[in-house]
């Protein structure tokens, strides 16, 4: 058995923007949550449980963002998710009949029927609709470390022109975490890995030990870290930064030879929502008749061709197992090479979007399960670890200021600041300044005014969500993202004047309070 010479740390960032529309069933965007529950969160939970049941000692870190927690905790969305599953079960039943003449397709129809039926059982009977508690369980038994994130995933390098708005993102992120997990978070996923040194003092103020940065957040730090991303560094203010390992990232993300592009894996874009006869599929697509993904997909990537072959579950599993072996061998070689150069055992940090696993890369959770089993049972030279455990074992680290950076395209702020979305920033800045103004004008307010001020804070935070800027840049669902920015800035502005004029419209306040029901415990005095 090889001696353990280093560590690998997986960090999955689970985030969705807050989407909650009690006023209508027509918002397609709400289904992002349902898709993520079925394809990512439940598969992760079931694979964690399998590992525990099999006695595999593993470690993983997940950031669960406050908007995601708020949605998972929302009774209406839980109810809608159950409806979503019932629809899919009904559709897969029809699919079993429809595909009776084709054995391979029929097997897949059965697979989807079983899978969605099982999701319904797990969600209702096992998890009692409470996925947060399900994740918390794994934290409580010591295999999962959950960290927090900015309140609404606001992008610090743009918000920090008013530092109080960054402070509020951190404060509410920490507060939300405590509400759901009953303890303080040790780490934070900086939204979009957007690092600015100005945030350090607030991170320390709210008890954050460590952050995750993009690779060059470490490599371009000042002074240059001697061990690159293979050891954490500590900022002069005392915030510890771990950097993303580039080699392992490339293996998963790469568009040329990344794992999720394997030809045996499920093809995301061939969905019966688009492929099936329109009249047949109409009850299961958007209310307005627009074709959308249903989640039932019958094809594998096959190759660079439009002629796709049927998905074969066993082949996909074989590929995942082969790739898990490859990843293990690569890390073993990497750590074997690194260990001679670092003072402490090297750490290879592998951060990914959680939704990559399962939603985009359908076999991702299974790959993770196999990999963790291999790491535990096979002869390799490293162990899994969480950043907190690493800090506790090896508290000595070089003092450096991490580089201002993000994990967006090209490494800085282009995704969230470019000609498609730059018009938004002045509104975010003015609303931030106005929120601080309100806190100073009406400190420690009571009653209706306090409620209105707290709602103002919620609207501001929701407007700051980096997702809207990202979606605009990305060019999909742009209208929705623009509307959300207008709605939150609009509601904020209206309330701002109502508060200043002492003419708060209770019905309006109640109405937007129902729609934007995040952060029940928020205290606007964080802007004071």
């Amino acid at each position, binding site marked *: 058995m090889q001696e353990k010479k280093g560590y690998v740390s997986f960090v999955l*960032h689970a*985030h*969705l923007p807050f989407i909650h529309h009690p006023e209508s069933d027509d918002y397609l965007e709400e289904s*992002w949550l349902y898709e993520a529950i079925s394809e990512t969160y439940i598969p992760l939970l079931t694979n964690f449980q399998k590992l525990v049941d099999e006695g595999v000692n593993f470690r993983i870190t997940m950031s669960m963002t406050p908007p995601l927690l708020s949605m998972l905790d929302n009774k209406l969305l839980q109810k809608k998710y159950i409806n979503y599953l019932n629809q899919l079960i009904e559709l897969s039943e029809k699919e079993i009949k429809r595909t009776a003449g084709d054995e391979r397709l029929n097997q897949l129809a059965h697979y989807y029927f079983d899978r969605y039926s099982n999701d319904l059982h797990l969600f209702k009977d096992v998890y009692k609709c409470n996925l947060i508690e399900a994740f918390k369980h794994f934290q409580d038994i010591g295999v999962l470390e959950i960290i927090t994130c900015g309140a609404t995933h606001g992008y610090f*390098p743009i918000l920090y*022109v008013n530092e109080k708005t960054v402070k509020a993102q951190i404060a509410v992120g920490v507060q939300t975490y405590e509400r759901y997990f009953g303890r303080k978070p040790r780490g934070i996923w900086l939204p979009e890995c957007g690092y600015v040194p100005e945030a350090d003092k607030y991170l320390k103020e709210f008890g954050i030990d460590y952050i995750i940065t*993009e690779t*060059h957040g470490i*490599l*371009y730090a000042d*002074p*240059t870290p*001697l061990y690159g991303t*293979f050891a954490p560094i*500590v900022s002069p203010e*005392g915030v510890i930064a771990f950097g993303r390992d580039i*080699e392992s*990232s490339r293996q998963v*993300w*790469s*568009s040329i030879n*990344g794992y999720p592009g394997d030809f045996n894996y499920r093809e*995301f874009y061939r969905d019966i929502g688009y492929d099936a006869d329109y009249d047949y599929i109409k009850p299961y697509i958007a209310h307005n008749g627009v074709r959308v993904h249903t989640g039932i997909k019958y094809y594998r*990537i096959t190759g660079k061709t439009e002629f796709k072959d049927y998905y074969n579950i066993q082949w996909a599993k074989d590929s995942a197992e082969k790739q898990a072996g490859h990843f293990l061998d690569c890390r073993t070689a990497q750590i074997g090479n690194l260990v*001679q*150069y670092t003072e402490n055992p090297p750490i290879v940090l592998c951060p990914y*979007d959680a*939704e990559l696993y399962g939603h*985009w890369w359908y076999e991702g959770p299974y790959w993770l399960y196999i990999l963790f089993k291999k790491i535990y049972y096979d002869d390799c030279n490293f162990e899994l670890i969480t950043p907190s455990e690493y*800090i506790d074992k090896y*508290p*000595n*680290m*070089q*003092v450096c200021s991490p580089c*201002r950076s*993000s*994990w967006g395209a090209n490494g*800085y*702020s282009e995704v969230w600041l470019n000609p498609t979305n730059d018009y938004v*920033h*002045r*509104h975010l800045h*003015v609303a931030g300044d106005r929120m601080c103004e309100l806190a100073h004008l009406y400190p420690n307010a009571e009653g209706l005014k306090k409620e209105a001020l707290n709602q103002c804070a919620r609207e501001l935070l929701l407007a700051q969500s*980096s*997702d809207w800027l990202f979606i605009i840049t*990305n060019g999909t669902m742009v209208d929705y993202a623009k509307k959300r920015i*207008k709605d939150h*800035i*609009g*509601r904020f*502005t*209206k309330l701002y*004047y*109502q508060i*200043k*004029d002492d003419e708060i*419209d209770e*019905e309006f306040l109640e*109405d937007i309070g129902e729609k934007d029901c995040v952060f029940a415990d928020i205290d606007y005095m964080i802007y004071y």
Partner: protein
Amino acid sequence: MPRKTKETNEIIKQAKSSNTADVAKKESPKTTAKNTKSVAKKSTAKKDTTSKSKPATKKTSTTKSVAKKTSATSKTVATKKTTTKKTTSKTTATKTASKKSTTTKKKADTKSTTKKVLTKKSTAKKQKVDIVEYYDLPYRYNQTVVKVLAQTPNNLFIYWDISDADRENYKKQYGENFFETTKPVLIIHNTTLNYSFEIDINDFANSWYLHVNDSKCDYKIELGRRPIAENPKINTNYIYISTSNEIESPNDHVLFNKEQKMVYFRNTKTGVQVEKPISANLSFIRNMGKIYDNYDIKEFYKVLYKNEDIEEFYDLSNPSSGNPSSGSLSSKFK
């Protein structure tokens, strides 16, 4: 009284009164039918008016519809509604009067119209009236402001505005044609390397992307104007308007300071910090027999990252934001 958006205010009142009307409906089924109709009509009327979009027209028609509602609903709704109505009319009147005389700040923000109309869910059982909202972002906030953000290590984004009050002051001081006889400029101050340069902008823009040569430097931006035509009241070649916040542009390369011989290590549990010579921490340098003074951290990184091109190591497009419908990731695997 502090300013408020005229239409916003009217609309809020309108919504209030109609919601109150809905309360009345619950009490009297007969009235419900009437009110529903009138609400529907109002919505249509409002939409039409809005699309025609002249502020004055808008105002009149809003006032009208408020008045109509008052009469339509006042029978069934008791005290609360009547009171609300009265207030509404008064406020509207005051606003109408005051609008003309108020400063331009009001005008600017008035553009941030929020229109609220009422729709009723068609189901007979459901009594609740939903407030349907529509917002536009304000065209401007009428503040004198310059803000700078770093888009990349070498690109800054700057936005600015001059309040109408300040514009008037410049006109008073330098004549009515002040803005026609001067041109706007941005002066970029690199306060780290202590140099400045200037670029011409124009009065049609309110933001600018600017290339700067030096990453990892502090910058602040000054907005000013320079004379371009004869103006007897201007006897200087530069008029200062405002200065931005100061930012540091991000670093974009591996730093190597050959002067630096020591690094600091901190025990994050105890807070104890120690100074160590770089050479003692780079065992590979010792192994390779290199002389400390000649070592290059980039060379060291090439050893650490032997499979990577460290000059371009961040050139991975991450599908950030975890938005499952963005399609950004899967498209990479096609």
